[in-house]
């Protein structure tokens, strides 16, 4: 400890506040420039704290699942009836899917079509979530060691939940669809109209850049477009939930606020993903052309 005389200490304490406030403002302004150093420090810190989070998450999960089990006791009868009905319906769909699968396979063979293969899924547990008033991201306990790369798509139980935005060696951050910074190229499944799904800090992100005379309707399914090279085409995202004076909102398929596990999907596309800092400046460069390539395959 530095030994200072009383008046000196008092002066230091008085000066500390304005100094630290100015430092905070300076950091905010610097952060606007997306400095790589800050990001690296962040991933290192996440890596270092990942074991701590895992340790804490365990008892929390036990309590949470206990609470859920208690709640489930009251609904077990209704739940059973519902599941029985759903099972009957799903069995029908299974038959349909098998038939279509065979048909699809035959048609692919005729066309010599090579599908974009999934290289693998990496399942990670959510160990921290931002929980703030303006951030929607989660930290998962898989990283470079498990093969996670920046830009890969993250799926919840039902559909896309976001994309990997930062990767450390043993933890990665997934930017959720609802985050302010999230932009995902999507397509309306029925009309094949393209749009961008943009998070705006509400639970239902907006569809931007729809064609002017769009035939979009409430309930339309939204899937990834595959353009931009971030996501492979055709992954389920959600359904249009409201159209209000030109503002079209989408209810995500997966419940983003209750994620426990995410599956990170390696489609072998990450090679074409530009670093985040390069995304806001679209230029007609080679990289741009390469990004647009997967689009060609998806056109019906």
């Amino acid at each position: 400890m530095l030994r200072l005389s009383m008046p000196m200490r008092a002066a230091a304490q008085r000066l500390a506040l304005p100094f630290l406030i100015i430092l905070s403002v300076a950091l905010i302004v610097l952060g606007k420039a997306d400095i790589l150093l800050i990001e690296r420090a962040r991933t290192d810190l996440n890596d270092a704290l990942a074991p701590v989070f895992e340790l804490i998450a365990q008892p929390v999960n036990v309590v949470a699942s206990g609470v859920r089990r208690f709640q489930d006791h009251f609904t077990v009868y209704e739940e059973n009836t519902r599941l029985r009905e759903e099972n009957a319906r799903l069995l029908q769909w299974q038959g349909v899917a098998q038939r279509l699968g065979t048909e699809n396979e035959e048609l692919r063979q005729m066309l010599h079509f090579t599908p974009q293969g999934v290289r693998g899924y990496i399942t990670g547990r959510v160990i921290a979530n931002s929980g703030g008033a303006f951030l929607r991201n989660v930290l998962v306990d898989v990283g470079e060691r498990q093969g996670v790369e920046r830009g890969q798509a993250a799926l919840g139980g039902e559909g896309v939940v976001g994309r990997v935005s930062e990767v450390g060696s043993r933890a990665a951050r997934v930017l959720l669809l609802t985050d302010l910074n999230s932009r995902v190229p999507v397509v309306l499944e029925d009309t094949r109209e393209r749009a961008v799904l943009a998070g705006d800090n509400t639970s239902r992100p907006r569809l931007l850049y729809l064609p002017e005379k769009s035939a979009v309707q409430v309930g339309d399914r939204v899937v990834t477009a595959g353009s931009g090279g971030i996501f492979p085409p055709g992954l389920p995202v959600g359904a249009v939930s409201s159209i209000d004076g030109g503002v079209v909102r989408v209810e995500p398929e997966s419940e983003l606020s209750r994620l426990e596990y995410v599956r990170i999907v390696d489609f072998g596309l990450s090679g074409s993903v530009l670093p985040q800092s390069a995304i806001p400046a679209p230029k007609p460069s080679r990289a741009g052309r390469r990004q647009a390539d997967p689009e060609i395959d998806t056109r019906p």
Partner: protein
Amino acid sequence: MKLILLQRDIGLINRLMPMLTTMLCVIASVVPAHLPAFTVVTPAFPLMAIYHWTLYRPDLLPFVAVFAVGLLLDMLTAAPLGVSSLVLLLAYALVLGQREHLLMRPFTVVWVGFLVLAAAASALQWVVVSLFYGMLIDVRAFLFQGVLTVATYPVVSYLLVRVQRTLLMRA
């Protein structure tokens, strides 16, 4: 001699308690709770700890510690670095200036004081973040977090008072 040293060490740990509990609050605010009420936003636990310690033991929570807590919070949540530091430092300064009006008063008064602080902090955070992103961000999440924070304050306050009573009587 050894005993005195040990006592001094315990004293040190005790005196670090405000900082440690504030750090703990930072971690608590990012641990996924999977509870229905806390799913979208979690209460601003660090603000509660800072309010409590600024009121009762500001000598054990220097400005630098508050700054560091803010940085840690921003790093863990991938927020623009410096936003939480700024908000928490200003909150600290505000409470420090109003301390004498809140000390030795019934809990309701302290709670109302916290309500004012939480409202100011949420508003400031909204302004700073909106400026940062260059757009007016939806305020509902900020409002909701503010309400949640004020509502959970009594519980956290109770726990911090327990820590203070058991560990800090001698320090």
